[in-house]
């Protein structure tokens, strides 16, 4: 994997010499880097072409060429343009003003339609609505059973029919069932396909006719490649989508497909899903996502999640230490336990600028419960002096700590190594020597 875009751009400009100003040729060299970054993020190559043309236009029109920090300027323009394409603000789910809110969920096989139906059901139920889930996929083996299991998990009723029938007819009867039982939201799962063939197109069109949907959500797997544009366009044309839902964003994909899909359909991204648990349905924030596509991390979400978990004051403290690079074992301990509270470590590392490309991420992410427990024991077996100044930890002190914590000297050494790694990372992030600098300026901290 390549480094974050801003680093690459700085590299390009360094190669071009340390002249303060750059020429149009230099700008094109820089834009080639942007192009590669976007292609590597799976943005469709046609979308990339148009995108680069727009960025170039803006760059030429502004002061980039005269700027003394052209790399930052270009990253900033790219970022703005990305946010623009991704949609300035996230749009909430539309609800029917009166009567039953009708949601159709469609997409290709394996994109996560059925699970999304469960997630939406859970969300609407939590918002105080009375949803009914509807199964219309008779093709995939056990699709109906899957929805029934989900319905049981979230305690929401599921309408299904044992005998195969056209989806539109099933939906019609499901709506009647909703009226009868007083449900005020109907969420219809649909059959998937690998490509949108005529059969499915007709089926979905008939379904939309019958249901008169409030929302037609097109589900897109975040790991989709160049094909995302065709998938989204075909579904949108066949059944007039009203929104996109991007699934599996808890993977390490850069998610360029989202950009492609936004560009060709113009539909708002209504939700993203970020985990296996049904609760993992989140709103979409274009500004944060732009950083991810460029491989620059998503600090805002990280801080937000931290804030939810730890409260304002503690976050400030951590942030301050991160920035100052002062970081002793006591801090390390605090941080490890905070990490434990915040959940998935790999996911968090992805959000930290400059770290998303880290090779040994998996290793760092292996900070699991057992390790945390052991680390806690080891650090707590140290004196305060040792915690603040780990350099004094000689062999005899380490032996004592190992005995005291019920571990071995090797465990103690490993922990100290991990601490040093973490400290190095903190310094890298705060020192500005790495790619985080440009992003920090962008985010204004």
């Amino acid at each position: 994997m390549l480094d974050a875009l801003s680093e690459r751009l700085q590299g390009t400009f360094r190669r071009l010499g340390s002249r303060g100003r750059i020429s149009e040729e230099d700008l094109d060299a820089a834009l080639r880097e942007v192009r590669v970054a976007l292609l590597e993020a799976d943005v469709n190559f046609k979308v990339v072409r148009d995108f680069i043309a727009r960025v170039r236009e803006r760059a030429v029109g502004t002061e980039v060429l005269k700027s003394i920090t052209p790399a930052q300027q270009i990253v900033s323009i790219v970022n703005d343009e990305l946010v623009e394409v991704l949609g300035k603000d996230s749009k909430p789910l539309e609800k029917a003003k009166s009567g039953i809110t009708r949601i159709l969920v469609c997409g290709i096989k394996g994109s996560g339609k059925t699970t999304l139906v469960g997630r939406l059901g859970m969300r609407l139920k939590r918002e105080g609505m009375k949803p009914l889930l509807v199964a219309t996929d008779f093709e995939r083996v056990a699709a109906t059973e899957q929805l029934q299991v989900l319905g049981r998990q979230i305690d929401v009723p599921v309408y299904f029919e044992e005998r195969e029938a056209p989806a539109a007819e099933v939906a019609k009867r499901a709506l009647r069932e909703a009226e009868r039982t007083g449900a005020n939201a109907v969420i219809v799962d649909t059959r998937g396909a690998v490509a949108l063939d005529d059969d499915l197109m007709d089926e979905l069109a008939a379904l939309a006719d019958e249901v008169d949907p409030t929302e037609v959500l097109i589900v897109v797997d975040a790991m989709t490649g160049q094909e995302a544009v065709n998938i989204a366009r075909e579904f949108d044309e066949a059944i007039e989508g009203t929104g996109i839902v991007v699934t599996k964003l808890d993977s390490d994909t850069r998610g360029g497909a989202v950009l492609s899909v936004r560009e060709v359909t113009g539909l708002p991204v209504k939700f993203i899903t970020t985990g296996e648990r049904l609760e993992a349905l989140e709103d979409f924030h274009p500004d944060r996502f732009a950083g991810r596509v460029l491989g620059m991390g998503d600090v805002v979400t990280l801080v937000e999640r931290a804030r939810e978990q730890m409260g304002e004051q503690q976050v400030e403290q951590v942030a301050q230490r991160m920035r100052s690079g002062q970081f002793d074992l006591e801090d390390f301990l605090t941080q490890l336990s905070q990490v434990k509270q915040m959940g998935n470590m790999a996911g968090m590392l992805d959000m930290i600028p400059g770290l998303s490309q880290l090779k040994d991420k998996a290793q760092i992410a292996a900070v699991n419960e057992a390790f945390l427990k052991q680390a806690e024991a080891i650090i707590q077996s140290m004196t305060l002096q040792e915690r603040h100044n780990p350099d004094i930890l000689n062999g005899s002190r380490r032996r004592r700590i190992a005995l005291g914590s019920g571990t071995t000297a090797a465990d103690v050494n490993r922990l100290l190594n991990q601490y040093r790694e973490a400290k190095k990372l903190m310094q890298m992030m705060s020192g500005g020597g790495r790619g985080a600098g440009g992003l920090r300026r962008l985010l204004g901290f």
Partner: protein
Amino acid sequence: MRLFWRKSQPAEPEAVAPLEEGTVAVAIAEESTDEVEDARRTEAAIERTKRSWFGRLTSVFRGAQVDEALWEQLEEILIGADTGVQVTMSLLDRVRATKPRTAEEVRAALRDELVQLLERPAAVSRGRLWGNVEGDPPPAPALVLVVGVNGTGKTTAIGRLAYLYQQQGARVVCAAGDTFRAAAIEQLQAWGKRLGIDVIAHQQGGDAAAVAFDSIDAARARGADMIFVDTAGRLHNKQNLMDELAKVRRVIERGLGRSPDEVLLVLDATTGQNGMSQARAFTDSVEVTAVMLTKLDGTAKGGIVFAIAEELGLPVRFIGTGQEPGDIAPFEAASFVDALLAEPVTADA
């Protein structure tokens, strides 16, 4: 490629004979009209992919000129097929290095590069069933562990592999190791009922490793030849889930007395550059030996397999297309690439 396994008990000789390359679809087609239909559909689907992808390539070669426009077009076509920037660039660099003078020479050189890229891993694969290993097939029951991220079609792939081997006279047992996703067990059981094969299952939420272990016992007790172990889809960047998968592998090793004979990574053809990351992570945790590319009946090209072949040396063994049991075919690098570069029927000779 051969569908290689040793029968646990003597059976009619023609069923045991290992298949020659590319004969699987044909062998199935001879079985009954249903299977003829299956094979026909598979071929049609592959044809569709070939046309959309390779059709574009061929039209590029129609012009005789080797100029920047040609290289640019080739670059777009390869990148547009999810081949990835780096692989595309190095491929085209190697083609350029042969100093082709005509578009036809470009075509020939590109074909060679593409075929070599896919064939190299097939030649060194360590898989005992589909690999290029000398000597006897693994003792019965042979075991295939099937892994992949969510939604690539693992359970369906298992249904089809089971069908494929059953058609060849093998006695198959499947292990419902996806104990996480709602109704995944029911999905595999429905396949089992449809094909008339045994599916070993525990409760949802149970221990996948235990299911795999039990399936080995069950297969031995029933004199089965093949075991396919399903696993829950998991994102490859979730270390705890990958650790859990590594445990499934270890438990299989203990039960089987050797490592799984093949570890099959199921990859969705619509996947972009993340496919590389998936292949790398699954290889790290469970030593993948082969790849199956699914959902090839759409317009997706699955070009990421070139990168996976180059960087990880993993061979593609099967492709999956439609929704029927017979919609599976062995992957053939040469014919895949040939079709990729072949002149369309209507073109001049």
